[in-house]
């Protein structure tokens, strides 16, 4: 792996903007999908930018992730490919979610390229919106020493925060780089050629950066193991589950912001679940003496998990959008990890790899079935 190291006096974001501008100016892309600060300043949204003068206003790596990038790309290409050549500037988990969605036919990757960026994690959305100035300052430090305090729990346990398992075209590295160093890494020969068209010749060694990643990874993996072993005790058994979800008001917002939950109408909001005869509710109430409304809270969470757990990329968007601060992403990541290990699958790591539950082998998973003759 080779790269090109540049120094960025004005910070990572400014350096990336320079690259984006050249790419657009040279006509190598027709438009760039990139986070941009909203007019009132306290948050960010994705903008698809064609006008190169607008690039200056974007923030390629913002301190929060209000909208998971794959959701933005999904909206753009759900009904078919785009005819424009588009570069999506995203965090690694957003790239993986986009690729995962392409397997589910909710994103069309034709004409789409990705630039992923080393991710220091994102702040909790609600914290940031309450006090953007404070967190903008904190973020300066985060970007400098890559040690995140106040980072979302999902990011603290994320082990794919760089180019690992992320099928982007160009990667921008920062971890472990000395003061102001930024490394541009083409992840394919095409991107190498592309970059040389804007006079970025990637011939330098990437050791400094790779070492940085390794160190960081070790720490994150520790965090992850610790968090998961704590969680394990908290979510096994119905009583624990009920306690874990005791603050949940069953609003389904976690589903609506999840990039992977793409159904136009979720099963749990559909007629099957919502148009139920009063008598049915009544007899369910009578079985237990009473029934909570809205009903089926645990069913919703476990059901959603069974639908998309294999594809959960652990982005934490669900937790950010939960009005009741339920640590929903953590439990989804934990379960997803188990599921994905079962099939040796990492969602979104490879454009060609199929989602395990959409394929099968005749000879597999016998430990889960019972073929013995009954005595």
């Amino acid at each position, binding site marked *: 792996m080779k790269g090109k190291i540049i120094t960025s006096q004005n910070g990572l974001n400014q350096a990336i903007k320079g690259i984006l501008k050249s790419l657009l100016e040279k006509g190598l892309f027709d438009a760039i*999908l990139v986070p941009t600060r*909203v*007019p*009132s300043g*306290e*948050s960010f*949204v*994705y*903008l*698809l*930018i*064609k*006008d190169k003068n*607008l690039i200056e206003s974007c923030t390629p790596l913002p301190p929060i992730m*209000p*909208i998971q990038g794959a*959701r*933005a*790309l999904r909206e*753009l290409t759900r*009904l*078919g*490919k*785009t005819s*424009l050549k588009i570069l999506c500037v995203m965090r690694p988990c957003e790239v993986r979610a986009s690729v995962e969605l392409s397997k589910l036919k909710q994103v069309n990757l034709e004409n789409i390229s990705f630039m992923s960026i080393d991710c220091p994690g994102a702040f909790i*959305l609600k914290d940031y*919106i309450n006090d953007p100035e404070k967190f903008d300052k904190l973020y300066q430090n985060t970007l400098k020493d890559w040690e995140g305090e106040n980072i979302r729990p999902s990011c603290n346990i994320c082990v794919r925060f760089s180019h690992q398992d992320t099928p982007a075209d160009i990667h921008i590295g920062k971890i472990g780089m000395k003061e102001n160093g930024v490394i541009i890494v083409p992840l394919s020969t095409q991107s190498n050629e592309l970059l040389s068209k804007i006079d970025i010749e990637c011939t330098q060694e990437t050791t400094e950066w790779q070492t940085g990643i390794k160190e960081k990874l070790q720490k994150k993996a520790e965090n992850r193991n610790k968090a998961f072993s704590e969680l394990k005790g908290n979510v096994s058994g119905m009583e624990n589950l*009920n*306690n874990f979800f*005791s*603050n949940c*008001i*069953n*609003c389904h*917002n976690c589903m*609506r912001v999840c990039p992977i939950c793409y159904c*136009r*109408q979720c099963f749990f909001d*559909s*007629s099957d679940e*919502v*148009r*139920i005869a*009063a*008598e049915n*509710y*009544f007899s369910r*109430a*009578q079985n237990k*003496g*009473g*029934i*909570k*409304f*809205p009903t089926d809270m645990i069913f919703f969470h476990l059901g959603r998990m069974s639908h998309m757990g294999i594809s959960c990329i652990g982005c934490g968007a669900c937790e*950010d*959008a939960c*009005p*009741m*601060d339920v640590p929903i992403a953590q439990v989804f990541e934990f379960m997803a990890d188990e599921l994905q290990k079962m099939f040796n699958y990492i969602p979104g790591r490879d454009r060609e790899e199929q989602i395990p539950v959409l394929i099968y082998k005749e000879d597999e998973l016998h430990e889960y079935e019972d073929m013995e003759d009954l005595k």
Partner: protein
Amino acid sequence: MKALKISKLPDDAIRELLLSLFERKKIGGVFALAKTNTHNYAYALITNKELLKNITPTIPLMPANAGKLLSRLTMIEPVSTPIAVVVRPCELRALFELVKLEQAKLDNLLFVSFTCSGVYPTRFMIDGIENKLKAYWENIRTGQILQDLRESCRICENFVPDNADIILTLMGKDNSNESILLIKTEKGKNFLEDKSGQLIEADLELKKIENMRSKRIDEKKRVFADLKTEDFGIKGLTEIFGRCINCHACSKACPVCYCKLCYFESSESEYSSSTLEKELNKRGAVRLPTDTVFYHVGRLIHVGITCVGCGMCSDACPTSIPVFTIFNKTAEHVQQLFDYIPGRKIDEQIPLSTFNKKEFEEVED
């Protein structure tokens, strides 16, 4: 009017009333807020009278608008067994609107409600609201507006449940040793006909109610004036909704947003990439997800006439956009235009499903 006097705290008085209804086989179920965990409360349909001890009808929380939940319960058919429903005035108004919209049925429901002093943001449940209760009840007695209540409650003028069958009078009273349950309707009378206990003559504390109402109206004027919606224009709208993450939680929480598949989530709201490319050429850049302002103003067109001012929308918003304030303020103007108060009367038609031949000549030419 006739009233039942029970020498107990409000929740206990309601429990006693419900228990007696259960025992005399007047009802087969109760729909009310109940304690579900140490700090947690949720609505529940309770059919076993032993579980009545768990209900907490006056706990100042609204995790969901009960009108919406009752529409779930009665969407297809009315309940066949009578049930007593203990909910707040705005939830009752929402239910009445939903009945008009053919999303719920009133048959066999007995409505118990109370002069409402408001609820706290649902988020307060995370840390527990138990330590708030002392101040809450104290302010009910003194008739003050608590500043940490939901904004919708601080400015609500329709806090008397005019369409309930039984009204517990709380506002402006001490409530520590006796509860007065006004029997407002014939239906209420029928349910209580053979109930033993002390029937007295009583009425709403009109003076105290008016006192509270005028305070709330002042508060509303202040809150509405602060948010200068009339000056928004497109700049103001893109600013206030700029941080919206397009999760539509506001619509899902809203009782009168009843569509099973919302227009803004339907295929009508999905665009081909060529459509978006056209927008891109026109504007130089496009926000994704799209249609943020379209969604909000469109939803306002849909629910402006029926918004009951319950505040669920703001409560649900993960990015604390003042959805309620914008919606309710605008809705109030719309409702004045048609001289309509949603949920006030069941036989009053929703203005958009009817018309007069001579009206609104100022908008046509």
